[in-house]
């Protein structure tokens, strides 16, 4: 395969492609900045970056409609930016400040936005899978035509509760898209050491859930698969599985030196399969955008990201009184 060749022939407008380019670039630059702030000690604890996986969320968000829900694991910054959450609020949560989405009380792994239908941000591997099916359960109960994107990784795919959930989602025809972001490493354990068979998209077969494998480095391929999944779920046919083959460039978390794979392996993915560079090439070769156009976009995005970092540094620490708030909800009068 030639370097950076997209696996699908996109039949899309240049505007759409340009938008995907911007959305992916925002995530990449944001994550690089987050990594930098972590290095400066401004972000603490665990911080799991999404660099390399950008096409997954950007492609699927392009297939979603207003009101659809999404839920994911602790590697959640990309999902939040892709569904339209404010970079300032996300970055301020990373730095543990009052203007963060959770007032600084959740951190990188635990962020939510009711407004954007983003239901977290969950720190326990695979816990979000039944939770996502539960969101879909609520949608079906309320007959509102919405679907839920339930993201989890290849590591989570080995948790028992995933299969408990598949079973119930299938019995009850829940409008839930199970998105397996297969980045090939469950922390430091490669898929071939952790998983008895290579294919995760067939894991629903025993429950009668259709699944397909998707090139997660190709944003248009992801979007098209997402549209098929959404159509299936919205028409009342029950859940659908997308195994999206992707790759994370950075370690599992900031403190992971990633010695379980070679530098060459990572470099090869970057050089040949990078989701952003692929779109960039299409934009340039198709003359949909010039080098200068893209440079201007890059500059604009850097500005947004730098502003979010400044915002996150300047936002105040939560007032000490916040220690004692939000433990219990008050009953409505």
């Amino acid at each position, binding site marked *: 395969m030639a370097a950076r060749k997209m696996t699908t022939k996109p039949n899309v407008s240049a505007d759409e492609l340009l938008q995907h380019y911007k959305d992916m670039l925002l995530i990449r*630059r944001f994550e690089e900045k987050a990594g930098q702030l972590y290095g400066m*000690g401004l972000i603490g604890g665990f911080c799991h970056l999404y660099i390399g996986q950008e096409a997954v969320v950007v492609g699927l968000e392009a297939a979603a409609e207003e009101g659809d829900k999404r839920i994911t694991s602790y590697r959640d910054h990309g999902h939040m930016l892709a569904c339209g959450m404010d970079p300032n609020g996300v970055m301020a949560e990373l730095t543990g400040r009052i203007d963060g989405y959770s007032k600084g009380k959740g951190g990188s792994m635990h962020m939510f936005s*009711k407004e954007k239908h983003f239901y*977290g941000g969950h720190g326990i591997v695979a816990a979000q899978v039944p939770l996502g099916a539960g969101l879909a359960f609520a949608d079906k109960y309320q007959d509102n035509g919405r679907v839920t994107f339930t993201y989890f990784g290849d590591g989570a795919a080995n948790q028992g509760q995933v299969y408990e959930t598949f079973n119930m989602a299938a019995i009850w025809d829940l409008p839930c898209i199970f998105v397996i972001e297969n980045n090939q490493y469950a922390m430091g354990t490669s898929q071939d050491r952790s998983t008895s068979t290579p294919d995760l998209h067939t894991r629903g077969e025993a429950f009668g859930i259709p699944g397909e494998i998707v090139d997660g480095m190709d944003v248009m391929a992801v979007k098209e698969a997402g549209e098929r999944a959404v159509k299936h779920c919205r028409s009342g046919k029950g859940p659908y599985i997308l195994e999206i083959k992707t790759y994370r460039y950075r*370690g599992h978390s900031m*403190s992971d030196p990633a010695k379980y794979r070679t530098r060459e392996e990572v470099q090869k993915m970057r050089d040949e399969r990078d989701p952003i560079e692929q779109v960039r090439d299409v934009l340039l070769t198709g003359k949909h955008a010039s080098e200068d156009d893209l440079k201007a976009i890059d500059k604009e995005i850097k500005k947004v990201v730098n502003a979010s970092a400044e915002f996150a540094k300047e936002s105040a620490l939560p007032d000490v009184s916040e*220690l004692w708030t939000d433990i219990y*909800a008050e009953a409505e009068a």
Partner: protein
Amino acid sequence: MAIEILMPALSPTMEEGTLAKWLIKKGDTVSSGDIIAEIETDKATMEFEAVDEGVIGSILVPEGSAGVSVNTAIALLLEDGESANDVAVPAPVSAPAPTVAAAPVQHNDVENEPQWRAPQPDWPEGTQMKQQTVREALRDAMSEEMRSDETVFLMGEEVGEYQGAYKISQGMLDEFGSKRIIDTPITEHGFAGIAVGASFGGLKPIVEFMTFNFAMQAIDHIINSAAKTLYMSGGQMGAPMVFRGPNGAAARVGAQHSQDYAAWYAHIPGLKVVIPYTAADAKGLMKSAIRDPNPVIFLENEILYGRTFDVPVLDDFTVPIGKARIAREGSDVTIVSFGIGMSYAMEAAAKLSESGVSAEVIDLRSLRPMDTQTVIESVKKTNRCVTVEEGFPVGAIGNHISAVLMQEAFDYLDAPVINCTGKDVPMPYAANLEKLALTTTDEVIEAVQKVTYS
């Protein structure tokens, strides 16, 4: 202006490290994502990537330097149009960490609490009463709430067609249909998670565990997903729902089916925990639990299901969560209990009165929030306290009450508080051993005699 490249923190605890190797040199062009150095932490050697683009203007910290503090400038990156001569080499300084104000001390502060009021009767005087089992009271409470709120539904194993493993949901499938009375597969972890997700999505689930022993499979969702989300989301979303089912020892079912989880759940901020004894409390607390916007653990007891109590005949009878009930007034000793422990407490109080000891019995009903003030006020009067529960003795509810009394009523105590609990053993099967493993009325009486020095 040149950009300083700072020594990064590469783990949650790193304060300094060794700059093992530079992979770039002065004059090199770097772009975002390029690996520029290797840095050794106490745990590993990490690759350090460039974030910004530019030309390396100077290397400030040579490779091989150990003990380089996080946030020290280690190199300078020149932006478009700058040259190395344009920039002054800054003295390495550490960026200041944000100052952290001292956390306020845990308030047990009574000042902010509303004035304590003695427990009030749960229904007006003269209210008509009817006899009902705990089982019927629970069913009526759920049904009444389901009639008035479409978002309430019941899910669990055998709740529908089988009419409930313990017949709590008898008749409910007929009334509400399979959309709202949902039989689940035997998969506690999964359906508890689905129910929590449904609560995030705007519904008010009631999850029946066939017994709370099986809820251990689901405890991650109860605690990590249900109890903590309101806090972790800065108040944006929580889990308005009820987890209910029989808790504690039944009879002759052995170690895995006989455990009291009261203290486990009472430990968790974000949960409310109720454990009724009477049918009236079962009904009134269940209705309050369903309406509560927080996750409520509702601990029932298989042995109590068939017991009959007076229940008030009222259109909408509720019992507030967090209020104890004085089940029997007395002056010589305070016996504090909850759930089935109340049967030992009440029996002991009746026998003690025959020998002239007047025991006040407090039924906590709620373990979180706990009405400790009612206990304290009672002990100020009686100066003695015995607690009764079936759970294990270490980290028991009684331990907590003892601690509260030491802090809040030390000067009023005339004897150490005694905790009557289940024995510190897994529940045996043999009838004689099982009896020994549980607390008994005689043990309660003995404890009262000790604290009253009689």
